[in-house]
């Protein structure tokens, strides 16, 4: 039996502090609006970010727009000219909502895409109770006749965009926390045509700015298109 190192104490862990900072907020793209919710001490705050412009700065995508926060008590406050600087992405896995596979198929409406998506999400090919009891995806082969990897290369798409927001003032927005360094996680689970178009453009921009070498021209064209949509 090993010796107990200390006895007679009921405090097993030391408290060192409370939450003071809001680290990140998670939103979904609906149309051109990022909608989401975060909690502060168990209280729900809804927020929206509506980008008005897009630009490239130091080969990074920067959105600029209005951030609105709705408090649990129902009040609404907003700040304009909030800058959202793209710092990283998460590649999507699964069925791309619209990108290369579906763009050309006019008959493949959004309903088709989301239905497929749903089926794949519920019980994926690798999660069936009895393995293999499903139809395999039609083979997509590389130039050497080997199966391709799902959601990579030309089958790829961006799933999440991570932005750093410019410093915000908690009291101005009615949030009792330090908002000086908030990360916006923008999930692109698109369900409408406008959001799908934006997701496609975001995928093109990230391909261009994270490519080696960086394709500034392609990025610029996509940013121009983003601005057209934001202003329309």
């Amino acid at each position, binding site marked *: *039996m*090993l010796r107990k*190192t*200390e006895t007679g*104490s*009921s*405090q*097993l*862990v*030391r*408290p*060192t502090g*409370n*939450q003071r900072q809001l*680290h*990140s907020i*998670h939103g979904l793209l609906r149309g051109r609006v990022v909608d989401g919710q975060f909690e502060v001490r168990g209280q729900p705050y809804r927020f929206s970010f509506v980008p008005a412009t897009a630009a490239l700065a130091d080969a990074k995508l920067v959105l600029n727009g209005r951030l609105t926060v709705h408090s649990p008590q129902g009040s609404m406050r907003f700040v304009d000219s909030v800058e959202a600087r793209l710092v*990283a*992405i*998460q*590649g999507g*896995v*699964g069925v791309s909502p619209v990108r290369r596979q579906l763009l050309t198929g006019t008959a493949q409406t959004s309903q088709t895409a989301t239905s497929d998506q*749903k089926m794949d*999400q*519920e019980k*994926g*090919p*690798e*999660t*069936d*109770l*009895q*393995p*293999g*009891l499903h*139809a*395999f995806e039609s*083979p997509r082969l*590389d130039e*050497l*006749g*080997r*199966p*391709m*990897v*799902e*959601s*990579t290369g030309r089958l*790829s798409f*961006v*799933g*999440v965009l*991570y932005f*750093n927001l410019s410093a915000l003032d908690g009291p101005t927005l009615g949030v009792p926390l330090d908002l000086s360094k908030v*990360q916006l996680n923008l*999930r692109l689970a698109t*369900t409408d045509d406008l959001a799908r178009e934006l997701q496609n453009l975001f995928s093109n921009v990230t*391909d261009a700015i994270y*490519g080696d070498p960086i394709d500034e021209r392609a990025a610029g064209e996509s940013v121009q298109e983003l601005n057209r949509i934001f202003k329309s």
Partner: protein
Amino acid sequence: MLCCHRSLDRLTTLSENETTVKSTKVFDALIIGSGASGGMAAKELTARGFEVLVLEAGPPVNPARDFTHHTWPYQVMYRGFGPPGWKQQEQWMQDTASHFSRHFYVKDSEHPYTTDPGNPFMWVRARIVGGKTLHWGRLSWRLSDLDFKAASHDGFGDDWPISYAEMAPYYDRVEEFIGVSGNADGLPHVPDGKYMPAMPLTCGEHLLRKGAEKTGRRGISMRVAMLTSQPKSFMKGRRKCHYCGHCGDGCDVNAMFSSIASTLPLAAATGRLTLRPNSIVRHIVTDKNTGKAKGVAFVDRVTREEYEVDAKVIILAASTLESTRLLLNSRSQQHPQGLGNSSGVLGRYFVDHFGGIGASGFFPMLAGRDPINEDGKATGIFIPRFRNLDKTTKHPKFLRGYGFECGSGTSLFPGMARRLITGFGPDYKKQVRRFYTAPVGMTVRAAMLSRFENHVELDPSGVVDAWGIPVLKMHIQYSDNEREMAKDAAETSEEILRAAGAEVVSTGGQMTAPGRIIHELGTARMGNDPKTSVLNKFNQMHDVKNVFVTDGASFVSSANQNPTLTILALTLRACEYLTEEYKRGEL
């Protein structure tokens, strides 16, 4: 914040209320994670007299509330599919989560990680007491020296610093403890173990086995960690499998091995286990003078209050990538590249298995027969690796090999009807009824070569999770070796299916994105040389002697077998060694 599982009644749990007293306890051992490895470490160390604290990042589990395996789709809204869009909005990477089991998995909205465009990674995570053992696949294969000494066999990569002979006694003990059903098949590359009776094959699986044999391959019953005979005396609270077939939604008779059914209750029964759920570890705290670990800093998942706790030994069992993330986040003056990373290897040699390739169809001779009650058998038939076993089986285009997980028989609608049969209306229903008893399919589980360039790092742009903890960026891609293997597997699966007499409906597929198989391994590998490895052969850190990493991060190579049995055996072995070192005052 109590754990409500009936077997965990004696467990000491902590809550935020316990923060008002004056002095602080130093635990003998602190285990991060309560899944397969963490639970086994808790059981072993408490049995050996250690006062143990387990910190689990997720909530407690309450089987009465959280397990839904006897719920029928028609009993719930949306027939079990959940409201439209739920998964894409919150749990888009949690591939195996259904609407029934979603609470076993993290919300991706709170748990970011990053990748490069075009190279995604699917990270399936379970932050909950019991971890992924609540819903794991249960396949329990031993590795052999073909795996442990793979580099000696084919010249690629590095051997493990251990051999099968060293591991065999630990495999024996783990299999007897967790309860594994299977057969002794006499195949040296999937060594036999201590088994309960295998689950019987279905008619279609017998046909497939014969088809495999016609092509020179073996088909064997899957070895699964499920009780098929009376539980042994130490398996308190566990029952024989009753073949309901919904293991992924939580097994409330505890027929399948899980931490909450097996290891944690025994640890709790010693009176020396303290488990604190909702405790997300930020980093390991090191002593500025000695460089050794002295405790951890963690944040309460719910209240977001920050804490520290001290321990003499730290065991990381948080899952492959979470453990490595923690070590990378534990930078200090003495460990500027992350704890235990003087070699620069931490995060490197990141591997996984791939799937997605195979063939499926119907057995015409089984179509239209009367259905029998076979759809609850949560296992099937396995065709073990047959490539590159020796000179006669050497493949000219790739190293290592793969196996096929196969199944045949009825399954709950929509099951095979979802895609193997197309159409609608009366004709569709007729086809579903006709082929309900006849589907067959096989899908690959394949090895991936361990390569230095596949790695994880802390996201260089500073992305954090909901608690402000830096997240990982994944860099992982398959090589030509895996692609050639996939091509061979596609061709071979069709060959076997046809040899079995099946009507082949679909073949080929796409290789799964890394991560989808949930076998991520490596990134803190073991080895004899501290310059090229993070851990020694006992899962002990070369650089910091009182830190152990006992989960899949320690793997040197992936093999093609499911890893959990090996993780459990490594943990058992590490705890035995740890105890001896502790007694000698070496930690």
